[in-house]
Structures are given as structure tokens and as C-alpha cells.
């Protein structure tokens, strides 16, 4: 049976169903419903909920709870994610799984609370210090919000790499019918022999991102980057809409990705051969599928709620095979399908 839920609620419920048993957060709009949903429902599921004194504290609580071997999540919105970056770097450096939800809003600085996609660089290119990657998943519907949180936990555990859900205020606040994924019993999840459960009948486990000797730290980094390569080889996910005979290819993700679907439908209605590639994983990015399509289309138009952050990855994928125009809005302004369609018509 489908339920009518906001994206924020669906991410929270999706997390609980995926076996999340520790959540730490701090209020910030437009993601408060995640915190509130967890406060109401996680303790009933036997999980730990703490409203932390700051985003900094919340991400470090995640670091502790994840080290204890429990599926752990925090959520915030852009300015709060900036505060979490130190902790995210430590999670990455200590090879700890964790799911971090960013319901993006307008920035930089305090910005506003309207939907935006200005944190793409921060999510996919680091943000915190050091050579690390996050697995970054970008849902575009409430249904996908519930499902990708579960996938984020699975991938994060499997590769011991923190995963981020990159959503935005529109997706967080809007409601859609959602068929929720089944409940998973944390006891049935794969064991974590590295977790801090007490050194009983085994040597102590230590969790740290610290290696004073440069050779040791290089080795840790190299091994981590082997995992990153494996992720890039195996975990790229994307959706294509009407790309078969497309002459103009749109690339858009998240909220902008679903608006672009309407653009494709309207363009097709007017006889224009327009298609869409919607990245679902922003890291690893679908370079190869875009490259393949760039061989066949006249132009690849990137549409984003930013000044052109994902655009850089699209251009890296296309590598000059065709023109790569850009259409973006900032500050929380969301273009309507017709506004994007005008841009498409100029290219078609």
C-alpha cells in the first residue's frame, strides 16, 4: 500500500527500514522533518536518537555510533553540512560507514531555505580536508528518496565509505505516494568484525585516521583509493529518458532531473528530439554513458540549480565531442519546464 509522505519523512522512514539504529541531528530548515520523524519513530524501533548541541557534535556522535557497529545517520541542510565536513573527513579517514543527508538550500552563507543544488562540489569533490570521496546519491522523487537511503547504507557498509544523499528543499518538502521498502532486521545485516564491541576473545580493535609515518598514511590512502576505483567501476547508476534518437541531451539530477522529464515530454510533443540523462550517483559520476551519448547528439545541455557545478563533470565526460551549453538558476530560484524548454528550442 502506498503512503503519502514528504521526501524528508520518506528518507527518515527509509533509514529506519534499512536498519538505521542511531541518528544524531540539529534543527535546520528545510530538513527538520527528518529530525522530528526520527525523534518520534527511531526510539520505538529500538534505536538511539539525540538532538545534538551542533552539527559538529552530531557528526561526531555518528563517528562514535558507527564505530560501535550500528547503522548511523545524520541529516542537515547546506550551512549545517559545512559544519559537518570536519567529521565527514574523519569518517572517511577512519573508513567508517555513515549516511549523511543534505537537503540543499540556497547559499552561500546563510543564503535562504529555498531549493538549490549549490553543494555539488562540496559533496562530490571533497569539501572536507584530505584525499577522500563520498558515495553521493541524488533522489528525484519521494519514492526514490526512501529507496536510495537504503542503498546508501548498503554501499556505505560494503565499501566502508561514508555515503551522502544529496536532496534539496523541494524534494524534502513535497509529498508523493510512496511504497515503502520492507523492514530489515539489523541482526541480519553483514557482520562488522572491525567494530568496537569490546575486546572480548580477540585483540583490541582500533579506529583512527591517524598515521604519523608518511609511508603508513600513503598506504592507507592507496588502499582506500583501490576501493574508490572499485566503486567507480561497479556502482554508477543513472536513468535515461528518450535518449534513443535524441539530438539534444539534457543532463540534470534530483529535482531538476524530474523537471527535465517534463521538458522532454513537452519537447517531444512539439516534435523535438530531446532526451534526458539523469545521474542517480553523482559520485561515482556516469562519465561513460554521457560520453557514449555525446558521440551521437548535437549538444549536451546541463541544467542545474547552481552556477554550473555538475557541468564541469559533464564537460569532462563529453571531452569536446559536441557543444556543452549550460542553463542554471541560483539562490533558490527553480526554473519552470517552459523556461528550460525555451533554452532547449534554441539548440534544437
Amino acid at each position: 500500500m502506498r503512503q503519502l509522505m514528504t521526501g524528508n519523512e520518506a528518507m527518515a522512514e527509509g533509514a529506519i527500514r534499512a536498519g538505521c539504529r542511531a541518528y544524531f541531528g540539529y534543527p535546520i530548515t528545510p530538513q527538520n522533518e527528518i529530525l522530528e520523524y526520527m525523534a518520534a519513530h527511531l526510539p520505538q524501533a529500538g534505536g538511539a536518537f539525540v538532538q545534538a548541541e551542533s552539527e559538529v557534535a552530531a557528526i561526531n556522535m555518528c563517528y562514535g555510533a558507527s564505530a560501535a557497529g550500528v547503522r548511523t545517520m545524520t541529516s542537515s541542510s547546506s550551512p549545517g553540512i559545512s559544519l559537518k565536513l570536519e567529521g565527514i573527513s574523519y569518517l572517511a579517514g577512519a573508513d567508517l560507514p555513515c549516511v549523511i543527508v543534505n537537503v540543499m538550500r540556497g547559499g552561500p552563507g546563510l543564503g535562504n531555505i529555498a531549493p538549490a543544488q549549490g553543494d555539488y562540489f562540496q559533496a562530490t569533490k571533497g569539501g572536507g580536508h584530505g584525499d577522500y570521496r563520498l558515495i553521493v546519491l541524488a533522489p528525484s522523487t519521494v519514492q526514490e528518496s526512501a529507496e536510495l537511503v537504503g542503498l546508501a547504507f548498503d554501499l556505505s557498509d560494503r565499501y566502508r565509505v561514508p555515503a551522502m544523499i544529496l536532496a534539496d528543499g523541494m524534494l524534502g518538502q513535497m509529498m508523493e505516494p510512496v511504497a515503502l521498502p520492507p523492514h530489515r532486521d539489523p541482526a541480519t545485516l553483514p557482520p562488522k568484525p572491525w567494530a568496537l564491541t569490546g575486546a572480548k576473545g580477540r585483540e583490541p580493535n582500533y579506529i583512527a585516521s591517524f598515521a604519523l609515518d608518511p609511508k603508513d598514511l600513503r598506504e592507507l590512502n592507496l588502499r582506500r583509493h583501490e576501493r574508490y576505483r572499485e566503486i567507480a567501476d561497479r556502482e554508477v547508476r543513472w536513468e535515461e529518458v528518450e535518449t534513443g534518437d535524441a539530438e539534444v541531451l539534457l543532463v540534470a539530477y534530483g529535482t531538476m532531473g524530474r523537471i527535465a522529464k517534463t521538458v522532454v515530454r513537452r519537447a517531444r510533443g512539439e516534435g523535438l528530439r530531446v532526451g534526458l540523462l539523469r545521474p542517480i550517483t553523482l559520485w561515482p559520476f556516469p562519465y561513460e554513458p554521457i560520453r557514449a551519448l555525446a558521440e551521437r547528439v548535437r549538444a549536451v545541455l546541463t541544467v542545474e540549480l547552481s552556477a554550473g557545478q555538475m557541468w564541469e563533470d559533464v564537460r569532462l565526460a563529453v571531452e569536446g565531442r559536441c557543444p556543452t551549453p549550460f542553463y542554471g538558476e541560483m539562490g533558490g530560484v527553480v526554473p519552470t519546464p517552459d523556461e528550460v524548454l525555451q533554452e532547449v528550442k534554441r539548440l534544437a
Partner: protein
Amino acid sequence: MPETETMTKVFARPRSLTEKRFTYCPGCHHGLITRILGSTIDKLGIQERTVVVAPVGCAVFAYEWFRCDGIQAAHGRAAAVATGLKRANPELVVLSYQGDGDLAAIGTAETVHAANRGEAITVIFVNNQIYGMTGGQMAPTTLDGQPTTSSPQGRDPATMGHPLRVAEMIAALEAPMYVTRQSLYDAKHITQATKAVEKALRYQVERRGYSLVEIVANCPTGWKMPPVKANEHIAATVTGVFPLGDLVDRG
């Protein structure tokens, strides 16, 4: 040396400590505190369920010295990391080991709020009035007039504030079960501090709640004093600013 009938072992490395050598300077109290913790963990029989949270500071390696599970926290965040561990698995005995820069400057918010929530953790706070690891800069606990590398003319309270009394600050909260300030400058105080550490850990084992043991410690290197003189300085001067004794015992 093998034991014989004529020799009895009266002193040994606590079982809860590893063979790894400490990286502390000669005469520093950190090593003594580590030893006290190791023997207390042995005494309470909690080695198999203890997790040591190490800070950034001179004790950054602390997680490797205990034969217990261990984790290295970001600077100032040990209390939040300890909160996460304990909330995720309440069966663990969680020990947060922190210095004064870590706990009382960059980590003040995490320190106060973990205490205020009454997290069932044990915090060992090593107050040596200086940033040792980074080379002897001014700490929040540095005494009025005390010269450091970042207060070369001495701490001037007019622009740098006065030493922060953490135990008093935490004792003002309602949730903590046990808040005490101890020192190690002579045998008597070592014995008292050992008892305080034991009580703080026992309260956690008994699920009573939060404890903080502030230990007024030395830093011979940072203070540029021989160890004996450093201990005399604690007795004569430092304990005047940071009075010793229990502030709260709700056990």
C-alpha cells in the same frame, strides 16, 4: 627474569595496557594517569567492554596503549564520539581521555552538553595548563601571568581571560553524578586520584551516569621545569587556582 621461590612479583604492568611505549616526556603525569586507568580497568574487570576515546593532544596515541578497543577523536569532539558509542551500545564502558585545549577550548560545547545530558560516560580531564603537543602555547587553563609561547609576556587577564575552572563549571549542572578535581604531585594525592578514577568508572559500570575527573597535572617540558620542581609548583601555586576535592557526588 623468571620468578623463583625467593622472588615475588609485587608490581607489574596492568593487563589492560599494551606493550607499546608511551610517547610522553620524562616526568610527565600523563604516563601515570594512563597506568592508573589501566590498573583500575583491571580491578573492575571491564577490559573486555571498555572503549577508550583518545583526543588530539599529547594523548593522541592513548587508544593504542590500552588493551581495550579504542578510537581516535577529532580535536575537541571526544565527548560527542563517546556519546555516539555509548548510545549505540550501552553495554560498553566508554572512557573519554582529554586535555585542556581539547576539552576546555575547542571542545567546550561538546563537553558541557554531554555532561548536561548526563551521558553515562567517564571523562578524564588532564589539566596541565598548556598546549603540550603543539609546543607550549597558552591553554584556557593557563594561570594568570604564566608565560607560554603564545603569551610570551605571561597571560594577561585583561585581554586573554582567566584560567577556566572546568570542574566548577560542570558541577553547576544537574545531571553529572560525580565531579572531582585531583592531583598527582605526591604519593598521597596519587592514591586519592586513583580512588577517584575508580569511583568514576564504577559509577558508569553501575549505570549511574556521567563522571568527570579533572586531574591537575604537570608539563615539565612546556613549563620548562624539572619534574620535581613542576610537582612543587602544583602543590604551591596551581592548586590555589584549581582547588582539589570532590565537587559533586550524587552516587
